[in-house]
């Protein structure tokens, strides 16, 4: 797998006219890769993901005062000795984007990032049904889906920056 996705190489792309990326276009994209062999299951990626998606952006305030607590956009899969964090893969061919009933999900044609328009999300959870990675989580109070946004605006996603064992890598190509 590379960070370049070629639209015309997709098997079923032609049936899905609403996808934003024009045929033949190359998307340059960085993704988060997991080095499972050095993931120590400390859950700090989760902690910092919650921090990043909090109101206050302050660890103590976010966890102790914000209600509901900010939801982590990623999820740890663990069965000793294996552990790794799962988050939105920003698939070249994103099933959630195709499945979304209201068009709340879209893939940015320039960055390749799959974005959510929270205003349009109706909490039907169709995206959760179709996501092959189980990477989408429910914000139950507001009845909205939440998922990894690659920490837009940051140089690097905070889970990668704060992984103490460098088990997460933000890279252009497969590692």
């Amino acid at each position, binding site marked *: 797998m590379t960070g370049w996705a070629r639209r015309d190489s997709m098997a079923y792309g032609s049936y899905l006219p609403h996808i934003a990326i024009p045929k033949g276009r190359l998307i340059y994209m960085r993704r988060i890769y997991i*080095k499972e*062999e*050095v*993931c*120590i*299951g*400390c*859950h*700090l990626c*989760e*902690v*910092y993901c919650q921090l990043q998606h909090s109101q206050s952006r302050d*660890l*103590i305030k*976010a*966890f*102790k005062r914000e209600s509901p607590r900010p939801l982590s956009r990623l999820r740890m899969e663990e069965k*000793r*000795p294996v*552990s790794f964090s799962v988050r939105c893969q920003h698939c070249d061919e994103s099933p959630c984007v195709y499945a979304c009933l209201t068009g709340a999900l879209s893939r940015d044609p320039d960055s390749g990032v799959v974005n959510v328009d929270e205003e349009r999300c109706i909490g039907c959870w169709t995206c959760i049904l179709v996501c092959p990675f189980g990477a989408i989580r429910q914000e139950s109070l507001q009845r909205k889906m939440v998922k990894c946004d690659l920490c837009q605006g940051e140089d690097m996603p905070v889970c990668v920056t*704060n992984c*103490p*064992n*460098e*088990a997460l890598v933000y890279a252009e190509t497969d590692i």
Partner: protein
Amino acid sequence: MKTYLTSKFLVERDPERCIQCQVCVNQCTFDVHYYDTEDDEVRSREENCVGCHRCVAFCPTQALTFKKNPLDYRENYNWRPDVIEDILKQAETGGMLLTGMGNDKGYRIYWDHLVLNASQVTNPSIDPLREPMELTTYLGRKPDRVELDRESFNLKTELAPQVKLEVPVMFAAMSYGAVSLNVHESLARAATETGTLWNTGEGGLHSKLHQYGNNTIVQVASGRFGVHPEYLDVARVVEIKIGQGAKPGIGGHLPGEKVSAEVSMTRMIPQGTDALSPAPQHDIYSIEDLAQLVYALKEAINYTKPVAVKIAAVHNSAAIASGMVRAGADIIVLDGLRGATGAAPKVIRDNVGIPIEMALASVDSRLRQEGIRNQASIVISGGIRSSGDVAKAIALGADAVYIGTAALVALGCAVCQQCHTGKCAWGICTTDLALTKRVNPDIGARRLANLLRGWSLELKDILGGMGINALESLRGNRLHLRGVGLTDTELEILGVRMAGN
């Protein structure tokens, strides 16, 4: 049986800062922290705390700290708390007390009583930032005399195999099984990057690490684990291990549960069986026997690489070392009283052996007196903590040093002495696959290489201050040392003058 042992540490969690993220819970391997779901609160069972710092280092809000339990016994110079606790442990278990790391008793550390010289007025010091400084060290047998061809001026003397080190600091023997493969890989990669050597210890060399063979010392110990032709072929130096500073005269015992599939392949023993290293090498009961093994190995490697012999520093080290050189050892390794281990009987670790400074000084002097110092390099280990210790060791007569504990500390070890439990929270001294991942070889190699780089910069500064531009000029130059607070006998053995003299 109810234990009468009390908590060593008190864990303090600041409730204002704790966010119940449970990172401490999942990082502690000694079951100190736990999460109470009902109260949504993280709590501690402090009696289990060993003081390894893992939770403190990983707490994202710095909510945790621990301190020594102030609980005291009535003051008594003879019946100190550690003495009482050892007795309690034995009364409760009926066994030998096991422990890890090196001697933690207050024996005099001679490095702290030796000071180095510097140039002032009468000879200029050198600025290592402006002038080249050389730390290059060659290990191996040096010729008695050097002969040149009269016509071509080429060297006529045939030199014994030499090993070039860019830094006179090598990584000490720590076996695979005692430490994890990730630790081995970190050491191997750092040694390769820095131009020095690392030592496999007695547990063999994993085939994945054969690529670093040119920077590897392989050990042949009493258990002969993992010794096969390729093992000897890929190595740069072959080391015969007679003894270890932490447990002179004692063998090794790697419990069966640590002999995983990979360890079993590397050690060449069945999976799950105890790996027992006999106390002596059963084919070596004399210097003559040692010579047989040295030359058997030299034959096997076709005289292409040096053979080292490692002993624990004991009372007769000087005489034994002389015998070792005569038995054909190209490098002799002395491991002192403070040398560490993955597991040893506490009574042995704390009471057997002599300080490395004394052993080094007496061995170097003895070999000089006998006119055979050139025939072998001297490498010392056991308690080298800083580049200052390295410089002092070199001035006392060492060619190079090994660091074991210092290298592990670079990887995170907090010297909590729980190596023998196999539960190392830093993932260093364990074979539990969930824990060994805690040492990422990419990070480990970087940290170790950084340490050696830092030390070599400091060594160059020390040399420059003395007005010396090559480590060779400091080697065995005890005039660059002075003693502080030492008795006449101590000064005499160290061959060092008192400060002011």
